[in-house]
C-alpha cells in the first residue's frame, strides 16, 4: 500500500476547526461559569448562550479502543466535540442542555469517573515510570491508580478547602509539575551509582560525565579509563546516569519515593510556591504502595480538617508554620528535611519566634 505524500513543518492543525459552533460564536465572550456538580459546569456567554462541560477522569495512558469509545459518546451527545484538560481529564462539551442527563446516565453505566471540578482533587499529573522510561525508579501509573482509588470520593463528591493538585514524578527529572504541587510523590535513589568501567570507557565522554555532577563527586579513574565516585559527596541525583548510562543509579532494594507538599502554581492570594519535603522515604511496594497511599491520605485529611476555606495546602502550612504541620500530621522530622544544597541558607530559621 503506497504511503501518502509526507509534509514537513506544517505544525498542528489550526484549533478553530475543532471548536464547537457555540464556542466559535462566543469566543472570548464568556461572562461567568457555575460549577453544577463535582463533574459538571456551565459557562454562560455574554450572549446568554450556555456551554455545559462534563469532566471525566482518565488514566492518561489510553488505548485506541477507549479513545474510540469516548469519541462515540462525544458524537452521541456533543456533536463530536470534546477536549482534554491540562491535567489529562476528558471534557465533553455539551451545547444542548437536554443531552446532559442522558450523557451522565450513560457515563454512569459505563463506569466513567465524573468529577474533578471545583475545590477537590483532580487527576494526578504523572509521567512514564516503568511503563516507558529508562530513568524511572518507581511506576507512576501504578501509584496514581492506587492513590486515586483511595481518594476517589475527593474526586467525585467530597469538597475540600480548595483545589488539591497531586502529582507523581518517577524520577528526579520531574517531568510533571511535582515541584509545585499541593501533595506529590517523587521517586528517589539512595545509593551511590555503580560503575561499569568497561562500558564507561567505551560509551561515555569522561569530561562531560565529570562535569555532569552537581556536587563534584565524580573524579577521573585514569587507571581504568573510567571514573570513580566520592560516596560522601553523591546525593543520588542520577545526572551522571543521564549523560553516561553505564553509571547505573538504579538500586531496586533501596530506591523508593518521597512525599513533598505545599506547592502551588497560581498567583492567587499568595505567590506560586515550590513543594517541600514532607516524608523523605518509602520503599517501593508495588502493586499498591499502601504506606505511601496512607501517608498521602493522612496529609490530605489533616489539611481538610484544619485549613480555612480557599486555603491551598501550602497556604495552610505557611499560616500555621511547618513545625505545626509536622505535629498535626505526626510526621517525624529528620536530617533529610534540612536543606544542605542550593537553598540551604534560605531555609534555616533566622528568628527567635517559632512554635514549639
Amino acid at each position, binding site marked *: 500500500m503506497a504511503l501518502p505524500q509526507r509534509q514537513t513543518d506544517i505544525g498542528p492543525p489550526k484549533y478553530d476547526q475543532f471548536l464547537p459552533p457555540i464556542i466559535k460564536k462566543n*469566543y472570548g465572550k464568556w461572562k461567568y461559569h457555575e460549577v453544577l456538580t463535582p463533574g459538571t459546569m456551565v459557562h454562560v456567554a455574554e450572549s446568554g448562550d450556555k456551554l455545559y462541560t462534563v469532566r471525566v477522569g482518565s488514566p492518561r495512558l489510553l488505548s485506541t479502543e477507549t479513545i474510540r469509545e469516548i469519541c462515540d459518546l462525544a458524537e452521541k451527545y456533543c456533536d463530536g466535540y470534546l477536549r482534554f484538560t491540562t491535567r489529562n481529564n476528558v471534557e465533553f462539551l455539551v451545547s444542548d442542555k437536554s443531552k446532559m442527563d442522558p450523557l451522565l446516565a450513560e457515563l454512569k453505566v459505563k463506569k466513567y*469517573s465524573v468529577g474533578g471540578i471545583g475545590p477537590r482533587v483532580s487527576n494526578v499529573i504523572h509521567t512514564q515510570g516503568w511503563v516507558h522510561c*529508562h530513568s524511572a525508579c518507581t511506576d507512576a501509573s501504578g501509584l496514581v491508580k492506587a492513590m486515586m482509588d483511595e481518594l476517589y470520593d475527593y474526586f467525585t463528591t467530597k469538597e475540600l478547602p480548595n483545589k488539591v493538585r497531586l502529582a507523581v514524578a518517577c524520577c528526579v527529572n520531574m517531568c510533571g509539575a511535582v515541584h509545585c504541587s499541593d501533595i506529590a510523590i517523587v521517586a528517589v535513589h539512595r545509593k551511590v551509582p555503580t560503575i561499569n568501567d568497561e562500558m564507561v570507557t567505551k560509551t561515555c565522554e569522561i569530561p562531560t560525565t565529570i562535569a555532569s555532577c552537581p556536587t563534584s563527586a565524580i573524579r577521573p579513574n585514569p587507571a581504568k579509563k573510567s571514573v570513580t565516585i566520592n560516596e560522601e559527596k553523591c546525593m543520588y541525583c542520577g545526572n551522571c546516569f543521564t549523560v553516561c548510562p553505564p553509571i547505573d543509579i538504579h538500586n531496586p532494594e533501596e530506591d523508593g519515593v518521597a512525599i513533598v507538599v505545599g*506547592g502551588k502554581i497560581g498567583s492567587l492570594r499568595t505567590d506560586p510556591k*515550590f513543594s517541600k519535603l514532607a516524608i523523605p522515604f518509602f520503599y517501593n511496594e508495588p502493586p499498591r504502595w499502601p504506606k505511601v497511599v496512607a501517608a498521602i491520605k493522612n496529609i490530605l485529611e489533616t489539611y481538610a480538617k484544619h485549613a480555612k476555606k480557599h486555603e491551598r495546602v501550602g497556604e495552610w502550612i505557611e499560616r500555621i508554620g511547618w513545625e505545626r504541620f509536622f505535629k498535626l500530621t505526626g510526621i517525624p522530622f529528620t536530617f533529610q528535611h534540612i536543606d544542605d544544597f542550593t537553598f540551604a541558607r534560605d531555609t534555616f530559621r533566622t528568628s527567635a519566634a517559632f512554635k514549639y
Partner: protein
Amino acid sequence: MSGKYKTPMLDELEKGPWPSFVTEIKKAAKKSPMADDELGQLEKSYVTKRGYWKHGGIVGVLGYGGGVIGRYSSLPEEFPGVAHFHTIRINQTSGFFYTAKALREICDIWDKYGSGLTNLHGSTGDLVLLGTKTQNLEAIFAEYSSRGWDLGGSGSAMRTPSCCVGPGRCEWSNYDTLDLTYNLTQEFQDELHRPAYPYKFKIKASGCACDCVASIARADLSIIGTWKGDIQIDQTEVKKYADSGMNIKAEIIDMCPTNCMAYDGKTLRIDNAECNRCMHCIAKMTKALRPGKERGATILVGSKAPIVVGSLLSWVIVPFIKVEPPYTELKNLIRKMIEWWDDNAKPRERIGELIETKGMRPFLEAIGVPPQPQQVKEPRKDPFFFWSESDFKK
C-alpha cells in the same frame, strides 16, 4: 495474540473505581503483541521493582531531528514486542480541542503501526503515541503529516508550546491563548523540528494568573494574561453572593493579599492602584467581578525542573505587554531571548540557569528591557554590585 502473560501484580491495579491503565494496556494487548509484551515486561518490573528500558538511542524521521523518543527493552529476547518501543510526539491542538473524527483518524493510523497505546497528553502537551518500531517511523510520519498532523519537539529544541483553554471557554482570558499558541508553534517550526539549541526551550501560555497550564513552573517562557485598569464590579451580583451565604469578609476581603478591598455589607470597593491582580476575588466571585478592560500579559522566563541545582519558577521580565495578532512585538522579544541564550549557554544549560550565571542585567540589556521593580520580589541584600562604564556617563 494477547494474554501471553500472567499478571497477578498488575491485576491488582484493575480493582478499584479509578480508571485503570492496566485495563488500557490489556485492551491494546488484545490487538497488539507490542502492547502485550509491554504488559509482560511491566509485570516483571512490578515483581523486581525495576525498569527494563535502555537509554534511548537516536531515531527519527528524515529531515527532522526530534519528535521521536527512541526506546529499547533491555530484555529483547524475553519481550520481543518491545525490543523497539519508541514514542512519537504529535503536536496537540491549541487547548486540546478535538473532534471525534480527528481522534478516530489518529487512532486508525496508530493501530496500523504502533502498540495502540497513547498518552493524552504528554506532560509538555504533545499527543504521545506510545510504542512503535524504528522501521515504522517514516510511514507513521507520512500518514500523519499528510493528514495535517506534525511531530512535536524533543532534544535540544523548541518544544511544543501549550496553553490553557482560554477564550475557548473561560471568562478570564486576557488574550487569545489558543491563537497565540498556534501562531508561536507555526513561527518556530524549524527550531521545533531540528534541535539546534543548547537545550530544550518550552513555551506555555495561560490566560490569567490562575495559570491553568502551569506555565510559571514548567516553561522557559511563561506568558500569563493580565490587565490594566479597574476590576469591573457588578454590585448587584455582589449582593447576591452575600445573600446566598458567602462570607465576603472572610472569603474575599481578608484573603486579598494587598488588603485593597473593603466591604461595608452593601458595596464592595477596590483600591485598584494597590491591587496586584492576583485573581483571587475574581475567581471566587466570578459573577460579580471581571478583569479590567486593558488586556495583555506578563512575560516570565526561566522555570524548569530541579535537575541539577534546584527547580526554578519563571521570573517576571516584562510586567505588561499587549498580545495581539500578528504578535510581532512578542515574537521579536522571544527571538531576542533565544538568541542571547543560544549565544551564551553551555550545552544542557536552560535559559533560567544562564540568567542566574550571567546575571539579569546582560539578559535585560540583550533583549532591550529596562530594569523595573516588578522584576524582583525585593532588591539585593548584599552591597556587592557591578558598575558598567555606561553607568558613569552622567
